[in-house]
């Protein structure tokens, strides 16, 4: 089977069991599914047990601050079909709660602990000690986009004086190479 056939086959199978899953195709060996968060354990079990996606590559979180949502992404890989599947779901940013999947893949536990600590996403029934990477952490989850890391560093740590007059070399580089500053980068200029 070539890649296209594998993808079509996969879409048919997933759609038959999870009709509400919205697929999105990409070039190469990648396929995305948007699903509801309740379906996550069942769709992952289905992919793992029936379709050969036995490897969990990653669990990631994207902070859609403007939309008030977190996007949780599970990446699974099939070594036979050489295909990776992204399972995406959106959850509420105010009360981020997710079903726990560490009974499907044991290693998911580590990723879930990290997301709990860095984004404050709660996984129901996750059994793990509270602290993972941040010991004695008192602030808000640091990977959220509304966490101001510079302000936090300013009032937690000392700074050695002398950084204030650091020059913004960006202007000079742009003048010499005659490039434009992209709009999104402008707000970082001093």
């Amino acid at each position, binding site marked *: 089977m070539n890649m296209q056939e594998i993808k079509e086959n996969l879409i048919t199978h997933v759609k038959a069991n999870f009709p509400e899953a919205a697929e999105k195709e990409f070039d190469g060996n990648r396929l995305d599914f948007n699903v509801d968060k309740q379906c996550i354990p069942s769709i992952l079990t289905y992919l793992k047990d029936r379709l050969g996606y036995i490897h969990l590559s990653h669990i990631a979180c994207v902070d859609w601050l403007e939309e008030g949502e977190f996007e949780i992404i599970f990446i699974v890989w099939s070594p036979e079909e050489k295909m990776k599947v992204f399972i995406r779901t959106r959850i509420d940013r105010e009360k981020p709660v997710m079903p726990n999947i560490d009974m499907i893949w044991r290693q998911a536990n580590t990723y879930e602990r990290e997301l709990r600590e860095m984004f404050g996403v709660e996984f129901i029934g996750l059994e793990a000690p509270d602290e993972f990477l941040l*010991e*004695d952490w008192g602030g808000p989850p640091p990977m959220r986009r509304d966490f101001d*890391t510079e302000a936090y*560093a300013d009032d*937690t*740590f000392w*700074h*050695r004086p002398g950084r204030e007059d650091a020059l913004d070399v960006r202007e000079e580089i742009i003048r010499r190479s005659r490039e434009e500053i992209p709009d999104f980068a402008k707000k970082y200029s001093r």
Partner: protein
Amino acid sequence: MINDKNSQKIVDIIQNWSRKHSIWVLAYGTGCGAIEIPPTMTSRYDAERLGVRGAATPRQADVLLITGYLTTKTLKRVIRVYEQMQDPKYVIGFGSCTINGGMYYDSYNTIKVLDKYLPVDVYINGCMPRPEAVLAGFGKLQQLIAEGKANGATKYKENLEWYRGNQKKIIPNWVMPEYNW
């Protein structure tokens, strides 16, 4: 026992001279800078000809190299290691991260100014310092030892309260053993 002042001076000179030529470095690396230690130690730059060599445990070591940024989590371990080391002991801050935070100046989890938490005898700047700079730093440390000026450990003992206060400010859950000096 030597009591009179002049002979004490002579003993100090001999002591410092011998200390200066056997700097044993604790093999403990933090941050990215530890990657410059192997080239410094091995054949090309060969730090051992200056008496600089690795030691396996804190109790055998004289120098604690802080080779880069320190997260608050690592700082705990580093303080513990430093307090386990026996006199004479020196600290070398290595790279701009230990001096003013370097490129991690706005990080939520790394300390910016090392000498608020541990007494630093020599700073080596650079991000990261090349082996030549490291050797220059060791040379400076040797010079300070010979002059009897590398007294970070004494400073630490005398101002323990101040250092502890700073350390406890960012490590609120202080569950570390207190070492008797």
